[in-house]
């Protein structure tokens, strides 16, 4: 196992981590501010990818496609928030899960009605395609480097928004005490719509960015949604910083686990057993990580509330 391979795998882990962060950030914001469990977050990811694929198909421009993804997912978010979610804030978590699960089905079959059952085509723009050579002779796809850069930039922008702006103060206040900030004259329902739209736009952006190297198809959001939930549980529900740390941890654990666990088992097991055992354990690695975090820090790594 060469150093080059290890560095490459760490980059891969980082890349999947920052993309996971885009999903987890929205999820954790929505839960933190509104106390809402939004299972339909994966559908907003799918909406972003489909909007990007449709616009890229017509215009051929990847940047326009990204804008379309942001706009479409944010619009879908506003629509869903005002029509459905708004009625659920006071409801029990179980009712929220039920209603947002229904939204998943509506989004999936709605998308199928519009775009059909076959996967759509969305490709990396030519100016970002192909591998580049990094110091040390590592060949690495340029697009994945761009994804790491984009993810980090969004994380930084979110940090500035939350910590340094007036809206950020309102969001943080909303997390702590929603009755009090309503009493202070902040229009809480507008704030909720805004936060929901922001979370949705982040999910849509992730869908479009990742859609270019994956398959744009109905149901693409649900596997990511599960990982995003694991991420915010690890990071501490409601904490953006926690979501970032959690996402990077999950990304690295998943990537490095799938590569190195089979190799590790091969040291003391025969190859065939080592391979299937390693692969099975790698699948479980993030959940084991989550259990360990919950044992030692029940509120998550950065969670404030127990």
């Amino acid at each position: 196992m060469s150093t080059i391979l290890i560095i490459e795998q760490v980059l891969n882990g980082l890349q999947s981590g920052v993309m996971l962060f885009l999903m987890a950030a929205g999820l954790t914001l929505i839960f933190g501010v509104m106390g809402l469990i939004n299972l339909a977050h994966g559908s907003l990811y799918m909406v972003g990818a489909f909007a990007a694929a449709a616009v890229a198909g017509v215009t051929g421009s990847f940047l326009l496609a990204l804008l379309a993804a942001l706009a479409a997912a944010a619009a879908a978010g506003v629509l869903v928030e005002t029509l459905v979610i708004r009625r659920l804030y006071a409801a029990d978590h179980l009712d929220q899960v039920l209603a947002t699960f229904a939204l998943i089905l509506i989004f999936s079959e709605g998308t199928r009605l519009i775009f059909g059952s076959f996967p759509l085509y969305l490709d990396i723009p030519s100016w970002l395609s192909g591998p580049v050579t990094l110091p040390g002779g590592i060949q690495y796809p340029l697009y994945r480097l761009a994804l790491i850069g984009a993810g980090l930039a969004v994380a930084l922008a979110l940090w500035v928004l939350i910590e340094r702006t007036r809206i950020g103060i309102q969001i943080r206040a909303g997390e702590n005490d929603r009755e009090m900030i309503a009493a202070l004259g902040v229009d809480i329902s507008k704030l909720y719509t805004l936060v929901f739209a922001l979370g949705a736009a982040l999910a849509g952006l992730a869908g479009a960015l990742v859609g270019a190297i994956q398959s744009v198809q109905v149901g693409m959001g649900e596997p990511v949604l599960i990982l995003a939930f694991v991420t915010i549980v690890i990071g501490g529900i409601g904490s953006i910083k926690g979501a970032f740390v959690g996402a990077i941890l999950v990304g690295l654990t998943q990537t490095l686990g799938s590569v190195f666990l089979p190799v590790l088992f091969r040291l003391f097991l025969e190859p065939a057993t080592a391979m299937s055992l390693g692969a099975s354990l790698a699948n479980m690695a993030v959940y084991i990580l989550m259990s360990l975090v919950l044992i030692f820090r029940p509120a998550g790594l950065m969670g404030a509330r127990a």
Partner: protein
Amino acid sequence: MKKLLLTTALAALATGAQAEVKVGMITTLSGGGAGLGLDVRDGFLLALAQSGRDDIELVVEDDQQAPDIAVQLSDKMIQSERVDVMTGIIFSNLAMAVIPSAVNQGVVYLSPNAGPSQLAGRGCHPNYFNVAWQNDNLHEAAGAYANTAGYTNSFILAPNYPAGQDALTGYKRMYQGELAGEIYTQLGQTDYAAEIAQIRASGADSVFFFLPGGMGISFLKQYADSGVDIPVVGPAFSFDQGILQAVGAAALGVVNTAQWSKDIDIPVNQAFVESFSAEYGRLPSLYASQGFDTANLLISALEKADPSDNDAFRAALRDADFESTRGAFRFGNNQHPIQTIYAREVVQEGDVFTNRIIGVALEDHADAYAAECQMP
């Protein structure tokens, strides 16, 4: 719904219609695998329409790719709708949940896609016919093609679930070279950066993969962008008409194995491709050809015998006296196909990505489990 059925039944009595054959199709029409079920259904419907028979009643239900739903639907079809023949299932895990109990209740099952090994060997049944392939077949053909192409050091990967394990077993059954690496990926995995890095470092001279549906699209796009240029072979599932447009240029030149291709130059296939495109506005896929062949097999048997005469009907099915879109077609002792499997190459025709036959991978190939099958 019940009322509707009742009125139709009354109307049928009133006009003294002939005895109808009832066919139940449970297939995947929603969720990630919907494209496959849709193609099987459309191929089947096309053949029914072309036959001009109006005595075949088809009931179509969506299994949502969930075994429990498939079982419920199948119980309903057998017990309350009393179907004579069933067909449609795409995925092997659903097939294992539905088929053994259906055939034991006396229903004839014609599989248009799934061919799990359990039903080809000791679990074979006189009422069960597979019209597509045994699951291992296309992978075996890929292994055979790797030998002819002169590959001696393959890197192989598949998802960690029964059909994925069968795929690697199938490839290794025919392939004679060394293995540069063997990986099981996660089912439903969408990022293959880690695997591609291992392929790059392995020094392999070829890559074999079985990653059906969206997994294959993701893998191929990422593989093409990684700059690794080791040749790829695989079964047709990741290179079929339904998904090639989503993969795009990343799939160009990849060799894949299939028992059917749209350029098999026989009149029945050319007519099928033409009429399917005209009817549905898209090119037919492998799955569409399997649905079409399944319906034509059924029609050929109905010409000779009535399903109520179980023995005669099964004998008529075993004869496989129909013109298949893939050319010569016959059943082995376990009622699975013995057929030729081709090597195809992904090409671009205008702005459409499709496949072209470049040679025969396995001629007159039966499956490895036939010997274990003891029909009563």
